[in-house]
C-alpha cells in the first residue's frame, strides 16, 4: 500500500481514528495490527519474513542482554546480526551471485546445479533489517535494554509509516514514544497534515513529473542525443530527492499525526557546499546509521593509520552504502565514487580551510555558489550509475553527453514546464529556509488567511500539476 494510493487515504484516517479510540494502554497493539495489515497489502507472504526477523531479534537480543561474559556476548551478537541479515542477503543478492556463477561456469562449459532463479525483493526489507540491526547493536552496546514486550519491538520494526522506505529510525527514539501514554495533540496533527501536504507536492508534482522525462530518456538511451541525456541526468537527482524526500515527509507527517516524532531525512541537500556537507543533509537516517554502526567503529579500528584510516573507513562505508542500494556493479561504482569524493575532501580539508581563511572566502556569495554547483555536479555525475540499468548504459550516457549532439533534444513541453514550476517552488521555499529562516512564512504564517491560501494553493497545484497513478517510490526497490 503506497502513500499515494487511494487505499492509504482510506486506511490512514481509519487507523488514526481507531488508534485514538483505543485505551491508551493498548494503543501500541492497534498500531502493530495496523502495521501488519499495511504490510500484508504488499505481498502477504513477506509478512512472515518480517515476523521471523522480529522474533529472531527479540530472542537473541534478550539473550545478549542477559549474557555477562563479553566473548559469549560478542558471539551472540554476530549470530544475531547474521541471522537478521540473511533474508536481506538472500533476497537481494542470491539472484546476482547465482547468475554470476552460472555465467562464469558456462563460459568454461561447466554446469551449475541451480538454474536462473529470480526472487521478488520483499518491500522495505533493507529498511527494517537496518532498524533491527541498529536495535541489536544498541542493546549490545548497552545504550538500551532489550525490550521485554515483543509487541513493542514488533511495532518498532514494522511501524507502517517507516517500514517501506524509512526514515531508518532508532529504537531508543521510537520505543519510549510507543510506551508513553499521550492524549490527542492537535498541534501535532496540524503539523503532520502540513508535512503530508508538502510531501505529496514533492512526490506527485515534482518527482513523478520529472520521472516522465527521466524514464523516457533512460529507458531508451539509444534513441536520445547528448543534450537529452544530460538534461535527464540533471533531472534525476532532483527526482530522487523529491521522491524519497516527499516520501519521508509523508512518513514523518503520518507518524506525527499519531503523536510520534520521527527523525528528519533530508535538509536542503542541494544547498550543500561540499560532499561531506551534502551527506549530512541527504538521506540523513541512512547516513547517520552507517556513521554510527559502520564508519565510527571502522575509523576507530583504523585509528593508527590516521587520515588514511579515515579514508579507508569512508571507502568501506560508502561501498556498503552502494551495495545496500542494489546488487549491481553500477551501485558499487556509485558507492565508491562517493567514497572517493569524500576521501579527497578529507585529504585536502586542512589546506582548503587555510586557503579559505587566508582569502576570507567562506562568507563570500560567489564562493558558496561555486561550492554548491561543484557539489551538485559531482553528485549528478555519480547518479548516472545510480540510474542507468547497467555499466554499459552508464558509460554510454557519459560518452554520448559529450559526443552526440547531431539532432535536436527530446522535448516534452508540458512535462518540462510543470517540472520547472514544481522545482522553482521547492527551490524558493528551500532558499528561504536556508538563508532566511523564520521569514516569509506561508504554512507557518500567523495570519490564518495566508496559511489557508497557501494550503489551498498547494492542494490545487497537486491536483492540477500532479502525476497520479504511479504508486511506486524509487526506494521501494532498495
Amino acid at each position: 500500500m503506497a502513500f499515494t494510493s487511494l487505499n492509504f487515504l482510506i486506511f490512514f484516517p481509519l487507523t488514526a481514528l481507531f488508534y485514538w479510540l483505543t485505551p491508551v494502554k493498548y494503543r501500541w497493539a492497534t498500531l502493530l495490527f495496523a502495521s501488519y495489515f499495511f504490510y500484508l497489502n504488499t505481498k502477504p507472504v513477506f509478512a512472515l519474513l518480517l515476523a521471523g526477523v522480529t522474533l529472531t531479534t527479540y530472542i537473541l537480543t534478550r539473550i545478549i542482554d542477559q549474557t555477562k561474559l563479553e566473548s559469549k556476548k560478542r558471539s551472540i551478537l554476530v549470530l544475531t546480526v547474521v541471522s537478521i541479515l540473511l533474508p536481506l542477503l538472500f533476497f537481494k543478492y542470491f539472484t546476482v551471485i547465482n547468475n554470476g556463477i552460472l555465467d562464469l561456469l558456462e563460459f568454461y562449459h561447466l554446469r551449475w546445479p541451480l538454474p536462473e532463479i529470480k526472487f521478488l525483493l520483499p518491500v522495505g526489507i533493507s529498511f527494517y533489517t537496518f532498524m533491527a540491526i541498529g536495535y541489536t547493536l544498541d542493546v549490545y552496546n548497552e545504550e538500551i535494554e532489550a525490550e521485554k514486550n515483543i509487541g513493542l519491538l514488533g511495532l518498532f520494526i514494522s511501524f507502517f509509516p517507516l517500514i517501506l522506505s524509512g526514515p531508518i529510525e532508532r529504537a531508543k527514539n521510537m520505543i519510549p514514544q510507543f510506551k508513553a501514554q499521550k492524549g490527542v495533540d492537535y498541534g501535532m496533527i496540524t503539523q503532520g497534515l502540513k508535512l503530508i501536504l508538502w510531501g505529496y507536492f514533492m512526490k506527485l508534482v515534482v518527482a513523478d513529473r520529472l520521472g516522465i522525462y527521466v524514464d523516457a530518456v533512460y529507458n531508451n538511451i539509444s534513441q536520445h542525443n547528448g543534450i537529452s541525456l544530460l538534461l535527464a541526468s540533471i533531472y534525476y537527482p532532483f527526482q530522487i530527492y523529491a521522491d524519497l524526500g516527499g516520501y519521508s515527509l509523508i512518513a514523518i507527517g503520518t507518524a506525527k499525526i499519531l503523536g510520534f516524532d520521527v527523525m528528519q531525512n533530508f535538509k536542503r541537500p542541494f544547498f550543500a557546499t561540499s560532499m561531506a556537507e551534502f551527506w549530512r543533509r541527504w538521506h540523513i537516517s541512512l547516513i547517520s546509521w552507517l556513521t554510527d554502526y559502520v564508519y565510527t567503529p571502522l575509523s576507530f579500528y583504523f585509528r593508527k593509520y590516521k587520515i588514511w584510516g579515515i579514508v579507508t573507513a569512508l571507502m568501506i562505508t560508502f561501498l556498503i552504502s552502494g551495495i545496500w542500494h542494489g546488487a549491481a556493479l553500477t551501485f558499487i561504482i556509485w558507492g565508491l565514487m562517493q567514497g572517493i569524493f569524500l576521501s579527497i575532501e578529507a585529504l585536502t580539508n586542512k589546506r582548503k580551510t587555510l586557503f579559505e581563511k587566508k582569502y576570507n572566502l567562506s562568507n563570500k556569495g560567489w564562493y558558496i555558489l561555486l561550492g554548491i554547483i561543484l557539489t551538485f555536479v559531482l553528485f549528478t555525475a555519480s547518479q548516472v550509475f545510480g540510474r542507468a540499468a547497467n555499466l554499459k548504459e552508464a558509460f554510454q550516457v557519459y560518452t554520448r553527453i559529450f559526443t552526440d549532439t547531431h539532432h535536436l533534444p527530446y522535448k516534452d513541453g508540458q512535462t518540462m514546464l510543470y517540472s520547472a514550476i514544481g522545482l522553482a517552488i521547492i527551490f524558493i521555499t528551500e532558499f528561504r529556509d536556508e538563508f532566511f529562516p523564520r521569514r516569509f512564512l506561508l504554512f507557518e504564517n500567523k495570519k490564518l488567511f495566508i496559511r489557508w491560501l497557501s494550503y489551498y494553493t498547494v492542494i490545487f497545484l497537486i491536483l492540477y500539476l500532479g502525476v497520479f497513478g504511479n504508486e511506486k517510490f524509487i526506494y521501494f526497490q532498495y
Partner: protein
Amino acid sequence: MINYIKKLVLFSLPLILIIIVELIIDPYNYFSEGKNEKLSRLKNEISQKDNPYLFKLIAYDRSPCSTIILGDSRIMGLKPSLFENYSKEKVANIAIGGGTIQDAIEIFNYVTTRHTIKQVFFGVSIETYSGTFLRNRAKPSLEIKNSFVRYLLNRYTFSSTYLICRSMIRKERIDLYRPPFAKEEFWKNQLISESRFLGSYSYPTNYYNELKKISEYCKEKNIKLAFIISPTHIELQEKINEFNLVKEYNRFKQDIESLGDVYDYNYPNILTETKNNFRDPYHHTDSVARIIVKEIYTKEFLYAKFTPNFTINGSK
C-alpha cells in the same frame, strides 16, 4: 476537539463545493449520459477539447464497437460516419490531436482487455514514429477514467466544469485551442514547426517492439490491423529531404509494412500537390477523408499505395 473538526470542515468547504458542482455538471459524462441538450453541446465543445481521451474513452466504454481508429489529428479527420456508410457497423474514432504512438498503444491495450474488436486502424506518420515523440496523455486519462475519486479530483474535470459554468453564466462561446492565425499564416507556421519533429528524429526501437507485439496479438485474435499514412501537403513532405531523413522514412514504411496492411497516401501525387485539399500542411479536408475511406473499403485505389501484409489472417 469539536473546534478542530469545525475548522477542518470549514477548510474543506470550498473543495466540497467544487466537487458538488462537478457532480452536477459531470463534464465528461462519467456518471451518466446527460439529457440536457445545451449541456451536451457545451461538453462536446469544451470537455472534448480539454481532454479528448477522457471524453472519447468514456463514450466508447458506454457504447463499444468492433472497429476502432487510433492516432493523431490527421486520422481524427476520418469521421466514424464515413466508415459506417461502408461497414454498416458502428466505428469509434479514438484518435486525438497531437496523439502519439504511445497513446495509441495504451488505448489499444485498454480497449482489447475490455472489449472484443475486429478491426483497428492506426494512423501513423514519420513525425509520430519517432524515438523522441514519447508524450503519453492516454495513461493519465485512463487512470482518471478508472476511479471516480480521481475523476472528481483532477484538473480536467475542474477546468472543464469551470469553462462550462462560465459559458453558461456569461452566455459566451468558448473555443479551445483555435489557432490565432489566418490560414496562410498558420500554414507557414506549421511548416516551420515541422522542425520540432524532424529535427529531433531518432529511430524508435521501443515503438517498433511494441507495435510488433500488437501485430502478433492481432494475428492471434484474428483482428485486422491496418496502418494509414495520411496525406500531407507536398511542401511538408519535402521537409523529409530537407532534414536528410529519406533513409529513415523508408525504414519507417518497411517497419509498418511488416506489421500490418498499409494504406499510404503520403507521397507526391495530384492529391497532395493540391493546396485546396488541405486545411494546413498536415491536415486534409473532409473531401479527402471521404476518398480515403472509400478506397479502404472498396479497394479501388486511385491515390493509396496499398501494401497488404500477407502474414496476417484475413488481410490478403
